[in-house]
């Protein structure tokens, strides 16, 4: 074994020749954060532009409102981040958001105690997730199609069981979980922070998170190394369904109304877009909850800022479209530079 000296770790870090690979190692740590840095810059520049046009943009009241409007998207985005990192895709979330809310709402208005009604709504979300996993794993239908199918089914169910009517008349204890505030800060923001931290830790530190990244990065390799990829898919989609239903239920509590037309395609697209803008790869393996939080905040900021400076908020979609394409193009460029093929 002639490489004894070159292989010594100290030589690898300080020596002249092996220094090249040492630098490669350093870049590995940094590049995880560069996309986030770009996003943070984007959020700050926009904030400066909006604040220059109207100083109320930076008032604490407006900033709290901005964050509050991002919370429900972000909560759904946490689970979607995991699904995408795991190499999947869940388009059904928009309809599950509505279905979970109307199921919980109907149970409540039919004299079920509200905590049980909430569990019922979460369970329906979990069942749709289970169906997504079963269809994509066992029937080998691509997740895009599987979850698009359940998107229509869940959306249709929400309309059918409510006859298209809004559901309201909830107990005040339930309403307060969505509409309450603590020290002027809506509960929803606390929920989003707690859920975000839980998902961040799950993705970055747990065996489940490592298995998710491995499976999304190279499904064949993960399976060949003994990771149970089908079981992982089930866990990811069930989580995604239950979390989408949870967000829908919280939204219904905030508005005191559950509507079959809540969420829908626009929620699905905004969540997936926010996650991808946040640096999560559509091809699996990489992504962070922090990035998705920034993506959701950027969304809310553009929407809120355009209103504050009296620009027609319908321009939002044009901004978002440009940012989405730019974010993915930059990501692809970085990937090409970073990895040898």
């Amino acid at each position, binding site marked *: *074994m002639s490489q004894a000296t070159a292989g010594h*770790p100290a030589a690898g870090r300080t020596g002249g020749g092996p220094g090249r690979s*040492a630098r490669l190692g350093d870049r*590995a740590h940094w590049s995880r954060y560069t996309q986030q840095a770009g996003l943070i810059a984007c959020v700050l520049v926009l904030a400066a532009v909006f604040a220059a046009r109207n100083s109320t943009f930076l008032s604490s009241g407006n900033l709290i409102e901005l964050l509050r409007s991002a919370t429900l998207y972000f909560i759904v985005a946490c689970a979607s981040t995991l699904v995408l990192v795991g190499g999947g895709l869940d388009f059904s979330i928009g309809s599950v958001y509505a279905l979970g809310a109307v199921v919980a709402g109907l149970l409540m208005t039919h004299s079920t105690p509200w905590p049980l009604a909430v569990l019922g709504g979460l369970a329906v979300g979990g069942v749709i997730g289970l169906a997504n996993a079963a269809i994509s794993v066992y029937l080998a239908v691509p997740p895009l199609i599987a979850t698009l199918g359940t998107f229509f089914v869940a959306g249709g169910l929400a309309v059918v069981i409510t006859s298209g009517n809004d559901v309201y008349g909830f107990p005040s204890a339930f309403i307060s979980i969505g509409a309450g505030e603590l020290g002027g800060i809506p509960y929803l923001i606390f929920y989003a922070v707690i859920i975000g931290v839980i998902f961040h830790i799950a993705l970055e530190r747990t*065996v489940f998170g490592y298995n998710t990244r*491995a499976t999304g*990065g190279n499904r064949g*390799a993960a399976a060949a190394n003994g*990771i149970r990829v089908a079981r992982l898919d089930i866990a990811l989609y069930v989580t995604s369904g239950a979390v989408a239903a949870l967000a829908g239920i919280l939204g219904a509590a905030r508005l005191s109304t559950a509507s079959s037309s809540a969420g829908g395609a626009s929620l699905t697209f905004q969540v997936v877009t926010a996650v991808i803008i946040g640096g999560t790869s559509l091809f699996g393996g990489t992504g962070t909850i922090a990035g998705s939080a920034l993506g959701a905040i950027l969304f809310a900021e553009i929407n809120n800022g355009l209103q504050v400076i009296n620009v027609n908020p319908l321009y939002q979609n044009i901004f978002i479209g440009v940012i989405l394409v730019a974010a993915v193009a930059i990501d692809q460029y970085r990937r090409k530079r970073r990895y040898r093929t």
Partner: protein
Amino acid sequence: MTEAVTRAADLELRGITKRFGRVTALSGVDLTAYAGQVLAILGDNGAGKTTLIKIISGVYQQDDGEIRVAGHRVAFRSPADSRQAGVATVFQDLALVEVLDVATNMFLGQFPRRGWFVDRKAMDTQSRAFLDELKVTVASVKTDIGMLSGGQRQIVAIARAMRTGAGIVLLDEPTAALGVRETAHATNLIRELRDRGATVICVSHDMNFVFDVADRVQVMRLGRVAGVRDVTTTTKNEVIGLITGSVSDSPAEELP
């Protein structure tokens, strides 16, 4: 902590048959591999080498025949079953995750745990210590696999198989993508593995490599075993003859 625990596990295949639709990829294949030896499997394209490897690693299930590990009959319904029985496989595509780092890849599917959490520190130090022990040059175990060269990736894949302490190690074309220096390193790793008492089975096209590292060669031809030889008592010409079919072990079949 890092020394591989090797078990004396002989591997035996008897009458393995595998069909894909109407194509019979393997018919009645026997194989015996001994602990502390390297068995090389040679053969032309389509001879059934990779199919055989995939059956031993649990990727495919045989239609007929049996597998014995250390004398015990086993059934591999999945790669997990095969691993459980102490078989580690270095696939031709290496089965590494490019977007994850070296340490994570070294422990893929077997992360050191602390409850629900991955013990990252233990994973990093054990990977580092293990790679140092094998004199593998990787600057940081936190380097993503995607940043490594083909040779470095191959060596990480072999090191991973050694790390698991598996008694039986399968390597599918371990030197196919390697340069001269890297081939020498891979050869050293395989010898190290053998000297630790592992049963090593190695599919290769590289005749020099095979005669360099193997103790015995088994030649496959058209889904059957064309012959098994000790490298000390055979020649490259004889082995090439077995591969092409100009030398045959079973004259009875050819003289009806």
